[in-house]
């Protein structure tokens, strides 16, 4: 089964799981400290999200055809969704789950109640997570994550990495392009590892 067929199958399965008013269950959340190793469960969540992203890729790839060769065939939306889920999974791995839901510029954002000292405890934290945090959190959280990585703040991260406009000012647009390439590379490498694991 090629990737397109696989994603179509996942889409159909999700559709069948989701529609029908006769499908009903109590929304009773059970919090468990799982016996699986942390790395195994994180892998499960990561690949779960990657599979769901694959559906989005096959659904909207025709609209993002100009990106097909640029980002290994991943759509911009799927890359952003992947990096958002990746950032959330990392926070949850370290039990950084205390947040409120705020609205900033008309968009829902998370407001995590942590400082740079809390984020410094995340061993895997590196700059590839910043854009995911930027997508899902308020700017204060992004500043704290950047401080944990040794920058004065978010603008300092942009400037020191040359994500600037023609006037030398911090530029989100300049950063977005580099991030898309970087994250699509990560997705491609992880997809290759999951294919090996399924043999």
């Amino acid at each position, binding site marked *: 089964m090629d990737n397109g067929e696989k994603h179509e199958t996942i889409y159909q399965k999700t559709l069948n*799981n989701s*529609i029908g008013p006769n499908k*009903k269950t109590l*929304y009773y959340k059970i919090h468990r400290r799982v016996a699986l190793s942390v790395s195994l469960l994180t892998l499960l969540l990561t690949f779960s999200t990657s599979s769901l992203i694959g559906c989005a890729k096959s659904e909207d790839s025709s609209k993002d055809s100009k990106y097909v060769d640029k980002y290994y065939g991943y759509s911009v939306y799927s890359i952003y969704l992947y990096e958002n889920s990746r950032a959330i999974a990392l926070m949850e791995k370290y*039990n950084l789950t205390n947040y409120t839901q705020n609205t900033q510029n008309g968009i829902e954002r998370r407001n995590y109640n942590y400082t740079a000292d809390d984020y410094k405890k995340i061993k895997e934290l590196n700059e590839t997570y910043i854009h995911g945090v930027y997508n899902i959190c308020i700017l204060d959280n992004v500043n704290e994550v950047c401080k944990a990585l040794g920058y004065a703040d978010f603008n300092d991260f942009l400037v020191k990495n040359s994500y600037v406009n023609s006037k030398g000012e911090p530029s989100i647009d300049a950063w977005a392009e580099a991030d898309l390439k970087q994250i699509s590379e990560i997705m491609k490498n992880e997809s290759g590892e999951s294919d090996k694991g399924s043999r």
Partner: protein
Amino acid sequence: MDVTFIKLEDGRDCILLDEFNYNNIKYAILVNSLDKDDFILRKIINDNLVGLENEEEFQKVFMYYFNTRIKDI
């Protein structure tokens, strides 16, 4: 590691991936804890996870989730 599990009506143990709002309705995305490619999208009504009306609703909600949980570039 703490993970949120939900038991579906057919007995599947699922992991809660995300919750979000669309048109004043709250939705949840779950994945089967034993099958990483087995996803479920349900709406949350009166503390119940309920199936969507039809494929049209599913597609609107599905694409809304992917298209709007990101910042505009």
